């Protein structure tokens, strides 16, 4: 259907521009802005020094508040991007060590961004096909632990074989974890949200069991063995504190690939049609149950890949299962990107940078890292309910297209 509409340009840039020109971008920016303001208010309200300053005089209190907000967000910025003046001067000095240390925050933020891209795209893909994969967290867990298994079990393989092998094992495990709820939804109508939540807890318990049982390293309790050197993903820097690895670029590639599949292939067209209107798609001869299964499996595979890449690029061993939160934050990543795989890269970077920068912020200002989750919640709150943003900023309501079609 969409192919008949003529030479509509559909490459990245024009989509990006289209997105910008839509009023939704204003909403997104205002949502982020409002979230930051509310986060600032929270930080001020929970800091005793501010109350002391208000006790002295109102002006003092206001000054202290603004100072705190400035320090919070500037250290968040410094922690995530690095110090711009240092970056520039290091570039001019040409000293590679100085450059590395100046760019370290930025590069490390990219490391944190990587799993967000995978999981964000995973959930966006699900949304596009009309399924809500809330189980990215469990899929990520299973992908990570099984990639680790492949990483230490096979010995003496060259990296060119070992890395793809471990990645594939992790990805397939994630796919299986997505396939089960997808199959159940297609065949029995059981809601995928509940089933993926259940699968999450099965994954947590299972990986906990594996770490304490069959997968336990004989020499270190509650940890799996370290993966073989040959299974390590390529890192770009010698220094161990600069962990940027090939995974980031794999993530970029996967996002582009999913974009291509969704918008350039018949398969992707069917995905989106089923997501938009399963009944109409059925009459058009598409198998919505097949699409549901495929979408959940692919989504699971991407989340599994997130875990596998984390394992082979950053962690090298699975320690006791603690929720990373990536799978849940990814819902925010996808929503913020309007479920567009390419935009997911940008929103994933936003969350990755916030998350990495928050550590520096906590050290500098004593504001806990958890403020990032609160910011995220505020941001999706406003994205999900744009009417609230419109009311706050007195924006005009866009013309309700559906309503007009109804009356016509």
């Amino acid at each position, binding site marked *: 259907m969409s192919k008949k509409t003529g030479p509509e340009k559909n490459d990245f840039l024009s989509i990006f521009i289209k997105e910008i020109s839509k009023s939704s971008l204003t909403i997104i920016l205002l949502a982020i802005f409002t979230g930051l303001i509310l986060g600032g208010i929270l930080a001020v309200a929970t800091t005793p020094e501010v109350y002391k300053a208000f006790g002295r005089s109102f002006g003092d209190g206001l000054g202290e508040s603004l100072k705190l907000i400035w320090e919070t967000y500037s250290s968040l910025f410094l922690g995530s991007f690095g110090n711009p003046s240092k970056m520039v001067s290091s570039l001019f000095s040409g000293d590679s060590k100085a450059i590395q240390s100046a760019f370290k925050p930025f590069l490390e933020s990219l490391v944190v961004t990587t799993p967000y891209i995978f999981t964000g795209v995973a959930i966006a893909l699900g949304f596009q096909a009309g399924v809500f994969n809330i189980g990215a967290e469990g899929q990520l867990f299973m992908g990570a632990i099984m990639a680790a298994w492949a990483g230490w079990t096979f010995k003496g393989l060259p990296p060119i074989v070992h890395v793809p092998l471990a990645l594939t094992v992790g990805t397939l495990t994630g796919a299986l974890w997505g396939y089960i709820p997808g199959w159940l939804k297609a065949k029995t109508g*059981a809601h995928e949200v509940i089933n993926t939540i259940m699968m999450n807890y*099965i994954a947590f318990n299972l990986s906990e069991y594996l770490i304490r049982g069959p997968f336990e390293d004989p020499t270190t309790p509650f940890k799996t063995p370290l993966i073989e050197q040959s299974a390590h993903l390529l890192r770009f820097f010698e220094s161990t504190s600069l962990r940027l690895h090939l995974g980031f670029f794999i993530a970029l590639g996967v996002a582009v690939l999913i974009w291509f599949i969704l918008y350039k292939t018949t398969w992707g067209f069917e995905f989106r049609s089923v997501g938009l209107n399963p009944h109409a798609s059925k009459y058009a001869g598409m198998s919505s149950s097949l699409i549901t299964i495929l979408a959940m499996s692919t989504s699971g595979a991407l989340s599994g890949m997130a875990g596998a890449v984390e394992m082979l690029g950053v962690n090298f061993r699975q320690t006791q299962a603690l929720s990373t939160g990536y799978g849940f934050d990814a819902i925010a990543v996808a929503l913020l990107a309007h479920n567009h795989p390419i935009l997911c890269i940008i929103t994933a970077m936003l969350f990755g940078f916030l998350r990495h920068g928050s550590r520096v912020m906590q050290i500098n200002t004593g504001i806990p890292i958890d403020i990032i989750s*609160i910011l995220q919640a*505020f941001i999706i709150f406003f994205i999900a309910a744009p009417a609230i943003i419109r009311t706050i900023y007195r924006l005009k309501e866009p013309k309700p297209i559906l309503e007009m079609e109804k009356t016509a």
Partner: protein
Amino acid sequence: MANQIQKDPIMKKDTTVLRQKFMGALFLAIAAFIWFVFVRTTDSAMQTIFVMTPGGSIATISNLTFNTKFALKTIAILSALLGGYQIVKGFGKYSNVILGVEGILLIISFLAWGAGGGTVNIGGMLRVAIMRSVPVVLGAFSGILCERVGVVNIAIEGMMITGALVGSMFGSVFGLWAGVVAAIISGALTASVHAMLSIKYKVNQIISGTIINIFTVGLTSYIVTKILQVAEWQYLNQSGFFPSFDLPLFSKIPFFGPIFFRQNMFVYALYILVVLLSIVLFRTKWGLRLRAVGEYPKAADTLGINVFRTRYIGVILGGMMAGFAGSYFSLGSLGYFEQVMTAGRGFIGLAAMIFGKWTPVGSLGAGLLFGFAESLSTNLSILRFPIPPEVLLMVPYILTMVILAGVVGRSQGPAAAGVPYEKESL
């Protein structure tokens, strides 16, 4: 939606018969399992002792000592008989009860076999099971109240964790009961955000729930790090907890007394709420209206029921329930707030709701089962062949998926759950 409601009666009958046969086969499989795995591996002279009273209370009945192999054989034969009857004639509407009986038989035989030659404190295990089931069942009630009016609530976990923190903080300063009240109010406030988003702004209810979960987990963790861990504020997190007390007369009942009626306030509140909620939902006009809004809001609207208001009431009541459930963690068991204390109990509550087919009594049963699994998982080391506790803890989730898939006893929720209501303009 409307065409989905009408089901083909012939198709329905076919699947019912299929399910009846399947269930019978399952019972037979359980019998075979007990016979060939448990009985075979048990020595004929072996004795198992079941202690029937929880530790610390005066024994009102003596311990049960029996020959393990004989008991296992009896259970296997009983299970086989039930399976045979189910296949040939079928238990009809009692099939699910029989399924529950089968589950209990399987657990008993597992315990008898596992403890072969040793002692199992059944009484103590059941008492702990009831305590552990409290937040799960209350969470399920929260889910029931929300879904019965047509709003899916996956934020039970978030509302619980809020209740737990608020309960502990207010409980520390103003006393335990004030803590409970504050927790309930905090649940109501959190729920009103969910209600506003999903009813007024028609946001996808799963997304709205996710927002609340992310927010509450972040906020509670923030408050703990920023305030409660600072030495001078630590007194804000020392609420203490409600002691358990004997319910006069009831606690004297042999076997059941010390298990059910030697508990704390939360357990007794649970008993009252089960009865109250069942009556209100299924025996009053108000409950009928509530359910009508969740099943077919348009019809309810036509009859003059205010759909939006009913939904707000349902969701906020659900939030209060979740807040109360949350306060159990700090004020009912631990005596202070800890970030990881809810540990997904809100989601298990959701599972219990599905398991219990969106009814209070069913959820109670499911919650007790989950509580028992938890209680059992901490006692596994006493068994002969210890299975890892993590594996046991997976069982409730797997069972929920099986139930949801309709393999054994299909469970279907209110028809309009998850669908925002749009009032049609005339």
